[in-house]
């Protein structure tokens, strides 16, 4: 049953902190985003930005010493952050599924693919017979473009190549027709040609089944090709959020500009790449004010004292920066 509540996922001011010996690590510090039914949203950031933890928080996969300390994760109106582990279990793999960078995080190396897929189906709906579950598993493999699915079902994960394993992970994610799929760097570890295949499959699947997709990655070029909206994360916060075309064509936040300028390509041959000076600050010791201040070329006094709020812009974006041109503001 395709869900029609919109937006299907609404994260409000999510905070996930890690309480370690060395201090409190604010991995996600006030993230808000929405995904509509059938939409593809890209969540972009470098390592340490908190993008993966956001995905894990939605799925309830954050383990000690981390925990969600604030905010709401509204999935079809239900706040996932408040659910008990047992209640969350009913959603996970069923209404919301996750695909990881390493397919071996999904696949058990000692079980056949068939066993794993049938188990996924039966654990959420014990009324399905084994025969039906097997048929559904076979169809799911066909859905992701795996030929001779009957043979493949009997195989073990190690008999597949990396790209195939990732496809199987996608198939498993699609098994129970989830409303939302969270994909955490699904193609980063794959070769270019295989990456193209997997992106193509996911694009097609989401178009056909109207499944919403949150694509978490560091690769702007990938999300530029498939997402409707893009959210850029830095140091645990979303710094810019808006329509794909707007952000790629005319980024507003200095970090987004820097990120786009850093990507090498044939249209930049011969020129030095734009560099973002310095490094990501330690997440345990964020500076007062804007987290990007040490690396920003537009930094001013207010940046060092106050953390910028999200400013709405004329073209429907949200940008967290004190220095947005007045003409762009809504």
């Amino acid at each position, binding site marked *: 049953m395709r869900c029609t509540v919109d937006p299907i996922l609404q994260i409000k001011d999510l905070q996930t902190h890690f309480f370690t010996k060395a201090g409190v690590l604010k991995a996600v510090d006030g993230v808000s985003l929405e995904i509509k039914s059938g939409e593809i949203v890209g969540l972009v950031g*470098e*390592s340490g930005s908190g993008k993966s933890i956001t995905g894990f928080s939605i799925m309830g996969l954050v383990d000690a010493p981390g925990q969600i300390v604030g905010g709401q994760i509204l999935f079809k109106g239900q706040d996932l952050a408040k659910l008990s582990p047992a209640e969350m279990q009913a959603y996970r793999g069923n209404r919301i599924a996750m695909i990881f960078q390493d397919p071996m995080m999904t696949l058990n190396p000692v079980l056949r693919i068939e066993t794993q897929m049938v188990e996924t189906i039966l654990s959420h709906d014990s009324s399905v017979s084994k025969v039906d579950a097997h048929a559904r598993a076979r169809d799911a493999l066909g859905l992701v473009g795996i030929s001779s699915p009957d043979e493949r079902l009997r195989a073990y994960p190690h008999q597949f*190549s*990396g*790209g*195939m394993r990732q496809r199987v992970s996608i198939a498993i994610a699609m098994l129970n027709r989830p409303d939302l799929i969270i994909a955490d760097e699904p193609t980063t570890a794959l*070769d*270019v*040609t*295989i*990456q*193209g*295949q997997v*992106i*193509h499959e996911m*694009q097609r699947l989401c178009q056909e089944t109207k499944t919403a997709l949150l694509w978490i990655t*560091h*690769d*702007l*070029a*990938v999300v*530029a*090709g*498939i*997402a*409707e909206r893009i959210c850029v994360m830095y140091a645990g916060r979303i710094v810019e959020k808006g329509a*794909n*075309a707007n952000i*790629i*064509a005319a980024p507003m936040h200095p970090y987004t500009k*820097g*990120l*786009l*300028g*850093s*990507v*090498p*390509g*044939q249209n*930049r*041959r011969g020129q*030095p*790449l*734009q*560099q*973002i000076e310095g*490094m*990501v600050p330690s997440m345990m010791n964020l500076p007062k004010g804007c987290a990007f201040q040490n690396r920003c070329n537009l930094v001013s006094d207010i940046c060092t004292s106050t953390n910028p709020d999200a400013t709405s812009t004329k073209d429907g974006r949200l940008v967290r920066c004190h220095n947005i041109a007045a003409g762009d503001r809504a």
Partner: protein
Amino acid sequence: MTPLLTVSNLSRDFTKSLDMVAKLLNRLGQNYREEVVHAVDDVSFSVFKGEIVGVVGESGCGKSTLGRMIAGILPPTNGHVFFDVTQAKNTDIPDALRTQMIFQDPFSSLNPRKRVIDIITEAPIHHKLIAPSEKRAFAIEMLKRVGLDPDTLERYPHQFSGGQRQRVGIARALAVSPEFLVCDESIAALDVSIQAQIINLFVDLKDSFDLTYLFISHDIGVIEHISDRVIVMYLGRIVETAPIETFVKQPNHPYTQALLAGVPRLEVGKRQYEPISGEIPSPLSPPTGCHFHPRCKFATPRCKAGKPALREIAPGHFSACHLNDEA
């Protein structure tokens, strides 16, 4: 102009020889065969002084093995690498040091037990390029060259970030005044914004120190940005070599075309991906004839039968495809 580095018919096989039980069983009539992987299969090309030659390919193409053979870490099974010493600017350096390598993993490419000052100066002192008394000044000079704070001399690798460690690795390589640098996926493990810093660093160093690079990467964007010429490899063989403009605008080999078409681009607007089909074959049992024929849209029976030769189809542009013969 003669090339600085010439690679002729270079090959490297990895053989998993039979153990005693298998040999015994063979005598009794079984037919176990040794498993051979032709990681690099009869590769020949040249690099001229001051060039940046990009080597691009996917898993199993052999580019890393090729890089290690050129750097002298791995001995070839066949063929040889010739370095034209007459073009070297510094004749006091031992030949073994003329080609250095920058590695991929910033975490395992530095000895965790050594301080940065020792990492950088170990080789020059060992080869008597500098005196032990000059150690500190030399290390400071090297750190400055790669953009690191000289106060960090006494620190250990774990106290640096990934990008900084790569800089230390570059300083270590430059310390022996090499002519030729093999960069094996040197930026793959870094964040995008740090990648940009290191790419800029590579270009600056090349100009300042008159270096020549063999830049190995799977990232087509980086290759396009930095290379003067590009070599495309597939399953151990070179399928195409071209100057950068030709590579981008007129790729000849179907594999190169598929590669360029499939790369995500930072362009405005969504795109429909049209990927090529099929998996990358296992290097243990590559397809006969042209390795690419099972995935190639234009394959003919001839492609299955015979290995295509790498032929010059335009000045400086080489391609290994049977379809070029018809033209």
